[in-house]
């Protein structure tokens, strides 16, 4: 059974209509969001960039869910399941389980200190904790660098939907990319005017659509295909040998190397997730540390959704879903959208497409806000305008968010799709290297700022080079006259996210190997620097800052500007209650 999309650029009017309908709804919602829990003035980062720091449990749940489960979840994970199975795809399930105990432990401390000291970004915290502009700059640059390809990946997700409804087939490059450009321009406009409130509101629509689509799909798989046959089809495909004599993929990890790869991918990704600026932004926008802990308990429902989505990759194998795009090339990213187009009526496929597309817009908005906040607080204000007023910060952030989005758009339009995925892989390697400075900093000032900087630099360089060195054959499959033909294009870099740990034959997630190098260097150099009594930098935080919450007296004390708390410039003077 071959999906009709492969035949040519036939536009499915019904699916497209439903997609456009939902797009209009979220656009209106995005602009109206500026009035939601309306502040006296939107002109500060606390309001524009953190939604007033007052989101309650339910809003935070939708916002974090909308933020963390992105086009990567909806498109890339099932695509990996479809193409190579468990190690590349299903690891995302333990990953999203492992992340919540970590959030439960670390993030309330982060929230408290950020709340007490007026921090907006993770780099703000590093600046205040270690008294080091250099280390803060390193954290900020890493955050921006890792976020850009993540935004680009959201665009790839939207492209997959556009391609599936039949708008991607035009030979005219401009017309082909026009839908993507329009949707991103609209996103940029309402993010500019409403700030974090826009994705927070749209996240309600997004998650409702996603849950509807995924429940329908999984009922279909269980009822029409059956779970047994689905897994059997996947096992057969993944255990088939390719022309080179290797297995197509991994159905169940079965040897020491795949155990290590699977475990480190899951654990490393879990540690990295909350180092991403957008995850931090969504966390800091909640109104209390209890809200975060409560969310750590209820967010695993999203992991269930992720797992079911991942299984759709296997369902696409069982249904022999065609993944040939409008350009004639096979693209595993099309597995889920094509699966919906294949098995559901056009109108419902449209709902699923809307879920995927809006599911990409929400995180893209939050990511661009987070990257913009990093730029404003830790580059613009830190190095160029130390006495910037709150309204100036908000304006710079708004403009920076536009620049970030259009940068990502140019990236996707001008480079091969594969590059977005490569850089997303690198982004994960990079962002994990801020873990030591941030998470260790929440507990101890033992590490020396220069040692942390050195460990970070070494790990960044090693991780980037190692990821680059992973070469795989760059084969593409093209549909010629209805028959798949393999084209060989030599080799490509960034072929794998796992590599041997230096001087061993153990295969680990590159980000985790780099983190080990990072920690070893940070520890050794700290010991040396402490021995020679190198200046450690001033710590502006107090032990109490790490425990305070919205109602405790420590917060009120910390909110009075003190000479030590130079980072504090704006604070919401009144805290609204969320119902």
């Amino acid at each position: 059974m071959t999906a009709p999309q492969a035949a040519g650029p036939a536009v499915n009017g019904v699916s497209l209509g439903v997609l456009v309908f939902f797009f209009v709804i979220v656009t209106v919602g995005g602009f109206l969001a500026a009035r939601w829990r309306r502040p006296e003035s939107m002109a500060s980062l606390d309001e524009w960039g953190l939604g007033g720091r007052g989101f309650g449990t339910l809003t935070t749940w939708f916002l974090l869910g909308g933020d963390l489960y992105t086009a990567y979840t909806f498109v890339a994970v099932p695509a990996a399941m479809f193409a190579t199975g468990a190690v590349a795809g299903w690891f995302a399930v333990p990953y999203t389980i492992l992340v919540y105990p970590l959030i439960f432990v670390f993030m309330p401390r982060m929230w408290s200190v950020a709340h007490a000291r007026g921090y907006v970004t993770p780099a703000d915290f590093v600046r205040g904790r270690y008294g080091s502009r250099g280390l803060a700059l390193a954290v900020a640059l890493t955050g921006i660098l890792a976020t850009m390809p993540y935004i680009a990946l959201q665009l790839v997700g939207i492209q997959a939907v556009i391609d599936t409804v039949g708008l991607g087939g035009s030979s005219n490059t401009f017309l082909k990319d026009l839908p993507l450009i329009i949707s991103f321009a609209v996103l940029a406009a309402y993010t500019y005017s409403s700030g974090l409130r826009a994705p927070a509101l749209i996240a309600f629509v997004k998650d409702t659509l996603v849950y509807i689509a995924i429940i329908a799909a999984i009922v279909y798989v269980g009822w029409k295909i059956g779970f047994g046959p689905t897994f059997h089809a996947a096992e057969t495909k993944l255990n088939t040998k390719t022309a080179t004599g290797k297995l197509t993929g991994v159905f169940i990890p079965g040897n020491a190397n795949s155990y290590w790869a699977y475990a480190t991918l899951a654990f490393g990704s879990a540690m990295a997730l909350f180092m991403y600026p957008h995850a931090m932004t969504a966390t800091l926008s909640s109104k209390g540390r209890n809200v975060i802990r409560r969310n750590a308990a209820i967010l695993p429902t999203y992991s269930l959704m992720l797992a079911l989505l991942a299984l759709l990759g296997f369902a696409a194998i069982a249904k022999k879903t065609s993944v040939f795009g409008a350009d004639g090339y096979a693209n595993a990213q099309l597995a889920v959208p094509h699966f919906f187009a294949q098995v559901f009526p056009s109108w419902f496929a449209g709902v699923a497409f809307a879920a995927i597309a809006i599911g990409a817009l929400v995180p893209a908005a939050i990511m661009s806000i987070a990257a913009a906040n990093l730029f404003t607080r830790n580059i613009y204000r830190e190095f160029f305008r130390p006495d910037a007023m709150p309204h100036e910060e908000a304006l710079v952030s708004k403009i920076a968010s536009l620049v970030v989005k259009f940068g990502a758009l140019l990236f996707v339009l001008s480079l091969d799709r594969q590059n977005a995925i490569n850089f997303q892989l690198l982004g994960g390697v990079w962002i994990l290297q801020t873990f030591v400075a941030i998470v260790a900093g929440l507990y101890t000032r033992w590490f020396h700022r220069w040692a942390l900087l050195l460990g970070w630099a070494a790990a960044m360089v090693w991780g980037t080079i190692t990821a680059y060195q992973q070469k795989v054959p760059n084969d593409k499959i093209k549909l010629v006259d209805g028959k798949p033909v393999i084209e060989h294009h030599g080799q490509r870099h960034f072929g794998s996210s796992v590599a041997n740990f230096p001087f061993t034959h153990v295969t680990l997630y590159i980000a985790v190997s780099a983190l080990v190098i990072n920690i070893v260097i940070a520890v050794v150099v700290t010991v040396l620097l402490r021995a020679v009594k190198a200046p450690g930098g001033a710590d502006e935080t107090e032990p109490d800052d790490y425990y305070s919450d919205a109602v405790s007296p420590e917060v009120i004390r910390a909110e009075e500007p003190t000479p030590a708390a130079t980072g504090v410039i704006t604070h919401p003077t009144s805290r609204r209650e969320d119902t």
Partner: protein
Amino acid sequence: MWVRITVAALLIMPIVALVAVPTYSNPSPHLWGFPFFYWYSLLWMLLETAMVSTAYVLVTRARRKGGSR
């Protein structure tokens, strides 16, 4: 003190269980067509929800009584 130990245990258990891949990388026993490897991961999702929720209740109660953390 006992609260802290219990909370720590509740939070560490899901991590240890899922990182120990060889303990569950088997196809059988199957459940509703799901190989063990797959349904075991899903089972931990439910267990974790229960464990983190319990940890939340314990921590909140302890804080109300005047402890920290």
